[in-house]
């Protein structure tokens, strides 16, 4: 009843099948990048990708996810390399950051289907609520990510996590590699 794939791994949740996916992800799988903001599908902070669609994870039960493929912000990429993530940093989109996982998942799902969306298509896809007011940068960042997907632009704005100290020291003269100490 509650067997499906989360970030390319098979999972069976031994929870009430009526549990919304959001809480299985957050409280059972500790995938806390997906946020709770309203529980009624209005804010979009809990948006995840289910079989290629951007879905409010507070609005689907784990029973309804049976056999499907769920991707969360943690599974979008392991190294922040998705063009949307890179464009989000290049255009300095996030402020408090709380709604941004949902925004990024919605934008990534949009671009997968249409790498060159119009303003109206972006507005229709991006119905997430942001209180900090990151909106003015979102259309631009999605367009930039689209250009990257279409091979028209390259960006390296956000470094991958887990850079080894020795590699960091090679790039930054002020740092010292561990063996030098």
């Amino acid at each position, binding site marked *: 009843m509650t067997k499906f794939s989360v970030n390319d791994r098979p999972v069976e949740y031994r929870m009430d099948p009526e549990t919304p996916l959001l*809480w299985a992800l957050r409280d059972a799988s500790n995938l806390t990048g997906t946020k709770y*903001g*309203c529980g009624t599908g209005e804010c979009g902070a809990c948006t995840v990708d289910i079989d290629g669609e951007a879905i409010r994870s507070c609005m689907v039960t784990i029973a309804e996810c049976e056999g499907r493929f769920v991707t969360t912000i943690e599974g979008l990429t392991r190294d922040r390399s998705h063009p949307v993530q890179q464009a989000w*940093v290049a255009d300095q989109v996030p402020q408090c950051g709380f709604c941004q996982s949902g925004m990024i998942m919605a934008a990534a799902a949009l671009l997968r289907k249409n790498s060159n969306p119009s303003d109206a298509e972006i507005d229709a896809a*991006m119905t997430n609520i942001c209180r900090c007011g990151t*909106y*003015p940068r979102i*259309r631009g960042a999605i367009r930039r990510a689209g250009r990257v997907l279409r091979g028209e632009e390259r960006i390296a704005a956000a470094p991958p996590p887990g850079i080894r100290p020795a590699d960091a020291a090679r790039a930054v003269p002020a740092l010292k590699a561990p063996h030098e100490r």
Partner: protein
Amino acid sequence: MTGIRDKVGQSGTRLPHVSRRQILIGATATGGLALAWTFWPRAYAPNLTAARGEHIFNAFLKIGEDGHIAMVVPQCEMGQGVTTLLPQIMADELGADWRTIAVETAPINPLYTNTLVVDEDSAVFTPRRLVPDFVSDVRGWARREWAVRHAVMLTANSSSVRMFEGPCRDAAAQVRALLMMAAARRWDADWEQCDTEGGFVTLGQKKLRFGDVAAAAALLEPPAEPVYRAASADPLYGKELTRLDLPSKVDGSANYAGDIRLPDMVFAAIRQGPLGATRLKSIDRKAGMASPGLLHIVEHERWFAAVARNWWAANRALDHFAPLFETAGTPISSGRIDKALAAALKADGYRIVKKGDVAEAMEGRTKVAAHYAVAPALHAPIETRTATAAPDGGRLRVWVATQAPAQCRDAVAQATGLAPSDVTLFPVMAGGSFDACLDHSAAVQAAIIALQIKRPVQLAWSRAEEIMRDIPRAPARARMIATLDAAGGIDALVARIAVPPTNHEVRARLFDNTPADVAQRDAAGTPDAVAIEGLARVYDIRHFAVDHCPADIGLPTARWRGNADSYTAFFTECFIDEMAARAGSDALSYRMAMLGKSPLLAHCLLTATSLAGWEGGISGTAQGLACHSMRGSHIALVATARPSERGLQVEQLVAVVDAGRLVNPAIARQQVEGGLIFGLAAAVGATTDYEGGIATARKLGQLGLPHLAQIPELLIEFIDSDREPGGIGEIGVPAVAPAIANAMFAATGHRIRRLPLSAQPI
């Protein structure tokens, strides 16, 4: 170690000159005060911890032998970018390589006291009993001493850079001197001949990494006064550096209070009933205890919590328990709030601002008046209030986003009976806040639950709870009365503002842990200068007065992004526009005539109108103007708005801002964009009605917050300036609603005098 390191954070330069004699006068006259001052500690030591290979230099800086520099930020990151801005200032002064900077949140320590906010909002932070009223210098000094003693590390009033640029720069200058001294010893050279660049101490061709001299430098005695780095050819200050928190905010790894995971941790949901003097009356125990997954329940005098293995199960259990509450006294309702505001406006008020002689100037003249009304404004951050608490032997650990960490810790200690020193607070980032994180309810509740069930717990409020139990920015009404000169200009202006004395309530909640309903009742009827701040502040009007008419609305009220300026700017800018129209004058030139003493704002206004192609505001243009100054910054705004079949359509906002020197122009732009959109949300929604003591809105979608599709084109320009930095977090907010209201008048010929904007008459 002595020297400036002990002064860091105490803002020594802002202390008034207090002679020993003045202190003696103050002290003798107030008895106990002299004793209290004697025992107040004068010097505080940093309480940082060092990782292996890390050396603590002062309250703001640590350097690792590997070359990383840990910068300590004593402010809450709630989206405003403070965890980039303060490090940017320090890295610039230090001569560091930006890629070596790490950020830590500050522990609670008097060294990080925000004395600037304490000075600006003296009404809020003046402890009544401790301070003599009659010697103003001593009063200010005592207020700061009190704030330092209580480690008032407030994040508020767009003050992070204004408060901490000096201390951060001094802290970095001190470390830089120590690094140069240590390097000079190795080279047997004069340290003052050395320089720093890119994370190295340099002397001619000689170079040493900061990390290589950190250990030796940390043992040296710094110079008594800061020696600042000469202007660099390529300064970090003023650069559009990428915010340090962005990588973690695009991959889901940034941790908020609800993302803490601890072994054996469980999840709690809560119901608190109506605002007001509310008590938990009963629960349906039989139905509730059968809830699947329920682990514990906690019954408190004022609330009820259920604990389960996941938050959804806990919240569903609450439905089954169906807790009932009873509230003493008349329940809060929108009708009652309106009546109280109207009554306050008719009653005598307190004259807070006075210039010239309004009574004489208005005597026998025709008065022009207008009445405005503003609804309560909800914070509505996307993160609902959340805290994680874990018992730890006889102690307690708490993870929460707070804008006043020491007061949060003290509130937890008081509620649990623990000593403050037994409560460890881990400040985390806030998912929005807009001053909601000045409320510590969730931390206190999580602490009580954790101690009762004896295991780590994470409490998150549901969205309905967040809306119903949010303490909103106050609703307000104003009656603006003017007499005009022959040319139609304003000769005399009286603004009467009915609004609760919010800041006295805030003080009682924040420093005395007074329940909100009690604080509301206690404050009723008292004058509050901060509650009318910003009204027509910028205009040079010959006879001018502002009255505060304290309204007893029953509803507790709080601080909010923009505070009082968010409604006083609406009153001012709408009324000025009405007077301009009445005089048959262009709204721009009408304002310019009164801005003789505000040249910076006048410059913004001219720039904004030229950028937007100001068409004179005549009917049919759909353009509206507004301007405002607060916290050392200025904004002029041209809005284009008109009615459409989908309701009010705001097409464009053109803003010109003078915020002085910008530490990071990219972050400044983000903040102004955010402020404008926050103002836009408040112009169209972000409010609720109240009925029977409860907010009528339960869902986020009922608050009318804008989506991407409703966002107008934004054009923002900053005035180049070398001025001291002004506040940037709030300046975008206040001018939006009046600019849109004025644009709607130009488009339709109808005045809107209500917020959220509505044509409904008052």
